């Protein structure tokens, strides 16, 4: 070998080196109803009966009301930290409306209405946000429990979808995630695995533009989330996440493909109008004008315009819906308040199928202490009731 076997500086060449670029990929955004409420794709309006169209509306109002009232409860100290879905109603409700009760939902936290539609009781949802573990049973609903550690549920959903495939079920795993989750290792490993296995999973990214303070443009150098699907050999769908009918179409289509062994990555482009959670102050990192701009794209208002154009709005008794939803909420709060007193044994009960002798000993010692030292309760802060 020569003493100097390569050029001093790599420099550039004139060779025409082929490359693939995101500029080559046309990522279209599926939309049915435009921001002003007019139908831009008449053929794409879902073939639903009128009362189903009205159901969609009712669920969107329910999502919004639940978020408003839960946030108020938190401020009064009657709920723990809460994550609102305000602004994302079309993504949350439109997606859940395209699922069946047999599908498994893997939630990420903001999709109250989707979980209630899926059979979860409102009482249990409130209990969850009061920090009561019993609610995480998610009784009567195929809901996997909230993925508080961002992205951690994605590979798990791939595994459940694999099981559904092995059991030849007519059901999918539906994974809710945010744009932030698409930066985690778990996202890339989980989605790649799903693509390789060809499992019935739909990865539904609600790109609400912020992961706490991080805007989407800084979350990734990619223009879209949807295009990431290509790297894993699956289809990506980009949809206007404030257009409930477009979201419904996207998820219904993806669900069909997933059942046929082709998992799909969906990006619903929307906006988180509330704080990340009630512990966050978004005025520190985003401008009022931006929030106002997205208020003008309000998903509920847009859908009202559609209903008006369709001649269905007169069938909507706004007051009756609001009253009904508020009553449901009041009843749920009352039921949550009436939840039985907790017992310390509960802490130890579910660690293993059978408590170990050491766990039994720890429980006995602790019970004994609580009985002998009633002032112990002074150190147990007043918490949301439950």
């Amino acid at each position, binding site marked *: 070998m020569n003493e100097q076997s390569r050029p001093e500086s790599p420099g550039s060449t004139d060779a025409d080196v082929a490359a693939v670029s995101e500029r080559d990929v046309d990522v279209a955004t599926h939309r049915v109803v435009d921001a002003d409420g007019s139908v831009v794709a008449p053929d794409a309006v879902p073939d639903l009966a009128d009362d189903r169209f009205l159901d969609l509306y009712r669920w969107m109002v329910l999502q919004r009301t639940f978020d408003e009232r839960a946030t108020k409860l938190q401020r009064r100290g009657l709920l*723990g*930290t809460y994550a609102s879905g305000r602004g994302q109603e079309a993504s949350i409700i439109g997606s859940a409306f395209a699922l069946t009760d047999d599908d498994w939902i893997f939630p990420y936290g903001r999709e109250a209405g989707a979980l209630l539609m899926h059979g979860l009781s409102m009482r249990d949802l409130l209990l969850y946000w*009061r*920090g*009561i*573990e019993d609610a995480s049973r998610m009784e009567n609903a195929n809901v996997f429990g*909230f993925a*508080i*550690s*961002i*992205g*951690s549920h994605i590979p798990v959903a791939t595994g459940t979808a694999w099981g559904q495939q092995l059991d030849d079920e007519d059901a999918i795993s539906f994974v809710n995630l945010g744009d*932030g*989750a698409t*930066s*985690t*290792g*778990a996202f890339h490993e989980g989605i790649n695995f799903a693509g390789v296995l060809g499992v019935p999973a739909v990865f539904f990214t609600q790109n609400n533009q912020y*992961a*706490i*303070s*991080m805007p989407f443009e*800084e*979350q*990734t150098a990619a223009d879209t989330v949807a295009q990431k699907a290509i790297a894993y050999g699956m289809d990506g769908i980009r949809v206007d996440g404030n257009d409930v009918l477009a979201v419904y179409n996207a998820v219904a289509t993806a669900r069909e493909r997933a059942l046929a062994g082709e998992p799909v990555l969906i990006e619903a482009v929307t906006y988180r109008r509330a704080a990340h*959670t009630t*512990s*966050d*102050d978004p005025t*520190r*990192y985003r401008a009022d004008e931006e929030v106002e701009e997205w208020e003008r794209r309000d998903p509920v208002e847009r859908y009202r315009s559609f209903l008006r154009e369709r001649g269905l709005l007169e069938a909507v008794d706004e007051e009756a819906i609001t009253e009904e939803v508020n009553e449901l909420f009041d009843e749920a709060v009352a039921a949550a308040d009436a939840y039985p007193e*907790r017992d*310390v044994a*509960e*802490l*130890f009960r579910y*660690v293993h199928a059978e408590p*170990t002798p*050491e*766990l039994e000993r*720890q429980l006995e010692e*602790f019970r004994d*202490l609580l009985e002998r*030292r009633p*002032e*112990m309760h002074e*150190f*147990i*802060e007043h*918490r*949301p009731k*439950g």
Partner: protein
Amino acid sequence: MQATIIEAINDALHEEMASDDRTVVFGEDVAESGGVFRATEGLLEEFGGDRVLDTPLSEIAIVGAAIGLAAHGYRPVAEIQFSGFLPPAFDQLVTNASRIRWRTRGEITAPMTVRTPYGAGVRALEHHSESLEAAYGHLPGLKVAIPSTPADAKGMLTSAIRDPDPVLFMEPKHVYRSFRDEVPEGEHTIPLGEAAVRQAGRDVTVIAWGAMMHNTLEALAELPDVDAEVIDLRSISPLDRETVVESVKKTGRCVVVHEAAKTGGFAGELIATINDEALAYLEAPVRRVTGFDTPVPLLSMEDYYIPHPPRIEEAIAETVEY
């Protein structure tokens, strides 16, 4: 100056960034919003976006990039927002950070700091309350430091940033703002690997760290007849065996208090150390007061899990009376 732990941490970051322009701070939400606990507030304004960066939501990349940046001569101070989100990056700590010096025979090193708030008691959501110091302390090559006072927070963080090896700096978030104390202004360092004797005594040695240091002192206030020697361990790794052993030789009795689950917790290592070097001096079995062998409960019952003063008090009284 009087400062809380969080203010002391902020002060240390300001000082170190000002004194060494190769110190960079990054993590989720640390720049624009000043960190979810405001530990990094004001750094972006003072040092600019090249040295104070918001990162994508990528714990593996945050810790992995810190290793690479440190290997390239920088002094990264990475923040993991809650210690419950550190496990994805455990691989980077195990595979690279803790052993890079050893693997390359000293050719490449990782003088980096990973800061992370840990512990229960702030009514947070799931995965926000873990205390896994024993797991990290188990990694040879990784230093694990836990301050319990504002002055130590500043002094130990400064030492961590200047340390030639990787340091995991675990911050007891329950006491982030619960009290103010005197913090030296300007340069202030506390060596890593040295425990502090918070109070001298003859009857029993009580060892704690982080938020449990404060519960321990509260418990002792209820035991005026007990002359306890209180050791704030401060460093899980390296471990100050000498201070622990000498104290136990003097008192003959010991209680260890930590918030993490009992089985496999760091109290086990301390008791083994005492058995190795001071068994003959013991007049009572070493007791431990810990969290239970359960996950940390959600907010409505987390106070049942935390070792509050009455539990600590009982163990100390029993040990002294044994």
